């Protein structure tokens, strides 16, 4: 079956994400530090994206490093002053290693898309998004893709969304790539990680306090992904609202579920 997917920033511009982060930070005290930091990251990513838009990109990170590296340096230096001590310490180590350390870090992440690494993800998300917009497939890494991985870059999903659109009524489910922000359709009653379809082993955890968010968990593989229900709150920006629902992450982890892909605040 041909996969119908949408490349690029279908969930709003960088500015829309930044505005949403500021709005949600003003509304909730507990998640404010996370959202303020994430808003700053989004600003840095937008600057990176603007720089990359003006540059000819080949799709091979190794060849594009000359353009990407200065952006990475800017992000590292900003995060060193505004981020938590753990990240600041790491940046100290990376900076001490010079340009070659940054290159190695980026290339390593680009080839593995490791779920729990911060720097590769924060720097290369704008790069991957730009490649998706240009329909320029990443050249220098394995692109093994299936319905659980992004059809463009083979990255894992950051979150799932329920949305109306096209000929669909009600809440069609789509996954949003954690790397290039491409979205692709995915079946409703199915585990995003292991593909389990037995409804008795799939659980949806929901709180009215976070009405448009839920945790889609699987009792077989014990993994979960958060779902942003855009049919309940159309103004939500999935990437940002996912971070704002941090309490659900903590709740799920305390019950032994493991998140499929950490977001940029490490939850």
């Amino acid at each position, binding site marked *: 079956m041909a996969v119908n997917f949408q490349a690029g920033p279908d969930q709003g511009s960088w500015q829309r994400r930044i505005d949403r982060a500021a709005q949600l930070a003003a509304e909730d005290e507990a998640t404010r530090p996370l959202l303020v930091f994430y808003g700053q990251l989004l600003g840095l990513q937008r600057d990176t994206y603007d720089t990359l838009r003006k540059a000819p990109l080949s799709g091979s990170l190794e060849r594009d490093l000359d353009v990407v590296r200065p952006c990475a340096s800017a992000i590292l230096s900003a995060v060193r002053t505004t981020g938590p001590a753990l990240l600041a310490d790491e940046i100290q180590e990376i900076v001490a290693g010079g340009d070659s350390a940054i290159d190695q870090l980026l290339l390593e992440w680009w080839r593995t898309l490791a779920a729990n690494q911060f720097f590769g993800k924060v720097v290369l998300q704008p790069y991957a998004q730009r490649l998706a917009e240009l329909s320029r497939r990443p050249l220098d890494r394995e692109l093994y893709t299936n319905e659980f991985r992004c059809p463009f870059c083979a990255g894992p999903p950051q979150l799932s969304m329920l949305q109306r659109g096209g000929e669909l009524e009600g809440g069609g489910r789509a996954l949003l790539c954690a790397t290039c922000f491409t979205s692709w359709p995915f079946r409703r009653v199915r585990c995003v990680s292991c593909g389990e379809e037995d409804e008795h082993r*799939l659980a949806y955890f929901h709180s009215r306090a976070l009405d448009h968010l839920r945790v889609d968990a699987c009792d077989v593989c014990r993994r979960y992904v958060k779902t942003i229900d855009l049919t309940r709150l159309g103004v939500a920006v999935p990437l940002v609202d996912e971070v704002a629902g941090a309490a659900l992450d903590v709740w799920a982890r305390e019950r032994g579920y493991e998140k499929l892909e950490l977001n940029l605040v490490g939850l």
Partner: protein
Amino acid sequence: MAISRRVFLKGSLTGAATLSAFGFDIAPIAAQARTLKISRTSETRSTCPYCSVSCGVIIHTLGDKAKNAVPQVVHVEGDPDHPINRGTLCPKGASLEQDILNDRRLLKPQVRRPGSTRWDDIGWDQAIDEIGRWVKKTRDATFVEKDARGRTVNRCEGIAWTGGCTDTNEFNYLVVKTMRSLGVCYLENQARV
């Protein structure tokens, strides 16, 4: 450069951690999480029973799987992955939740007497007795053992049965067995899905 273990920040957040994998203090968020009233639901794919189009539906059931908790249907919606309806439902199908949960559901038998304009409650025993008596009387009066050409037909032409679209397979099985044993030919059970 040798990449250190920490450079890769292997997140290993488990249990009641106080820091996120990237070092954020999540104590306030953990406190917030404890105030959340979280409900567990399941989504079950099924088929609308109302007509032969056979639209796919998703039934949302609330329940934490505890042995003393009774699962409760809280929502029914069209299945967006179903090739027939792609998430749409007709107004009747969209009201399926009310087929499952409905304050107006009749819980005891009622009868409308000949010439009466209203329904009266009657007891189960009385209802079964009356139905049995009328079925026997009607069947005896209208039973056709042989047709006009003398062939054995053993049919009851004075009774007809019509079923409802939400009747189950098992119920329809019993209906067919019962009606056929009475010789009823005018039998419709709406089992089309």
